[in-house]
């Protein structure tokens, strides 16, 4: 069935049609959410929230790209999720001895966050990119994710994040610069096409 037809049925209250639309777009929605919140569980929560929110707001849909409309809701759900994470940061459960006392200077206090080499050793360029992406400010991360990962044009991104198109342009330029700067830390471990970027910074 055509997407426009599904949308019409969903707006009229057809849950099956709505679920069909969800199935069509859930992969991109989840992946955008994952790149923004950088955590699979949080991304799943944000996507589910976005789907529920989309169902509630179906009657406010005024045409245009359904995917963009859905991504806008997903992005807002990601903002909410990130806010929630800031309010309630996750704390690891502290290890105790058999007597119930806290272990002094436990090994888990050691900073084991992966360095560039370890990241590349563990996975590949994807991990390096995700590492740099997570290090970006939220506003830059969202723009570069929507443009480079989701493949949206500037105008759509401006609509999704609710900013002027000029802001999208400048944020994207800054985000790409920062990404390049971050990726230079991975040096020789990067594939060929990334190496010369690092060399430039080293000059």
């Amino acid at each position, binding site marked *: 069935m055509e997407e426009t037809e599904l949308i019409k049925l969903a707006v009229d209250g057809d849950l099956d049609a709505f679920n069909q639309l969800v199935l069509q777009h859930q992969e991109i929605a989840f992946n955008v959410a994952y790149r923004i919140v950088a955590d699979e569980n949080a991304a799943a929560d944000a996507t589910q929230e976005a789907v529920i929110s989309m169902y509630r707001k179906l009657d406010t849909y005024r045409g245009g790209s359904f995917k963009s409309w859905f991504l806008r809701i997903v992005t807002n759900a990601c903002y909410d999720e990130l806010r929630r994470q800031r309010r309630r940061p996750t704390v690891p459960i502290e290890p105790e001895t058999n007597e119930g006392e806290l272990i002094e200077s436990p090994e888990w206090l050691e900073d084991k966050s992966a360095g560039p080499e370890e990241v590349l050793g563990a996975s590949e360029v994807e991990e390096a990119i995700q590492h740099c992406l997570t290090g970006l400010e939220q506003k830059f991360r969202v723009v570069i994710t929507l443009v480079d990962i989701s493949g949206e044009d500037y105008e759509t991104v401006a609509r999704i994040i609710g900013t002027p198109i000029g802001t999208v342009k400048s944020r994207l330029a800054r985000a790409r610069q920062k990404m*390049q700067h971050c990726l230079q830390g991975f040096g020789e471990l990067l594939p060929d096409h990334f190496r010369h970027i690092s060399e430039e910074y080293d000059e």
Partner: protein
Amino acid sequence: MNRQAEISEKDITLLCEYLDDELSIKDRARFEKRLQQSPELKQALADMTALKHSMRNLPYRPVPHQFTLTRSEAEKARRGSFLLPGFAWASVVSMILLAVIFGSEFIFANFSAPQPVAEPLAMTLQNDAAPESALRQAEEEGGEPVYLLNWVSVGGKGGGGAGGSGLGGGSLYAGDFATGMGGGLTEPYAEDMALNEPVEPPVPAEPMQIEEIAEPTEVASTLAGEKITVEPLIFGVREDQLGQVITVQPEDNEVPMVAAIPGVIEAEKEPLIPTNFKLLLVGLAAANGLVWLLLKFRR
């Protein structure tokens, strides 16, 4: 040396637009010309293309589960969809009403013109015995009565002129209690004007009846033990002249012994909107806002 540093922020933005095919045909042609002339710009474009390519080709993560909704989830979502904005709007409307009420009261309290003389029109006798004794004394000395004007039933009519407050309804004794009548033109009804008759001190709510109108004369009056020469304020008042304007400006030291009628003054102080209503609005705004917050964060 950092090659990136040689490229301005504007050029980086142009590079991005070029790469994302967001430039107009004219701008694109111009930028391509620049690219051919600048190896730095060309290199920067290659770097950015590599980054974009890598980002674009990041493998998609498989979804951990289907995000479709069941019937019960859909019903639950629909229920919450009108509750949340409902409470939010109720809270906002209550707050706006409160702001309007407090704002208007503030404006009226601070920027409206003051009511000049409310007390003299709302006056009554402090010493009830004084007029009677004054009347008797006047009769003994000159044989002429004291004029007694009563505006009891013409409440509100004295306030028509400039500076008048419209709060009529008090009793006025000629000579001694004319204070405050300069406010405006009044039309005392004939039946409210009693002359030449020692009467009981007037009760504000009940108009006095005229039995007889005598020729006016000059009399002396004693009020609260102090002898005051009272000039006749009305000359030649006859029936056909009744209803005309009578005003007397008091001397500075002739402050009449009056007391405000408590009810009148208190009525003035009463706020436009009852306090209970304001409290109700505050409560509504707070309660709706609280419920909205609870619903919002329980999700």
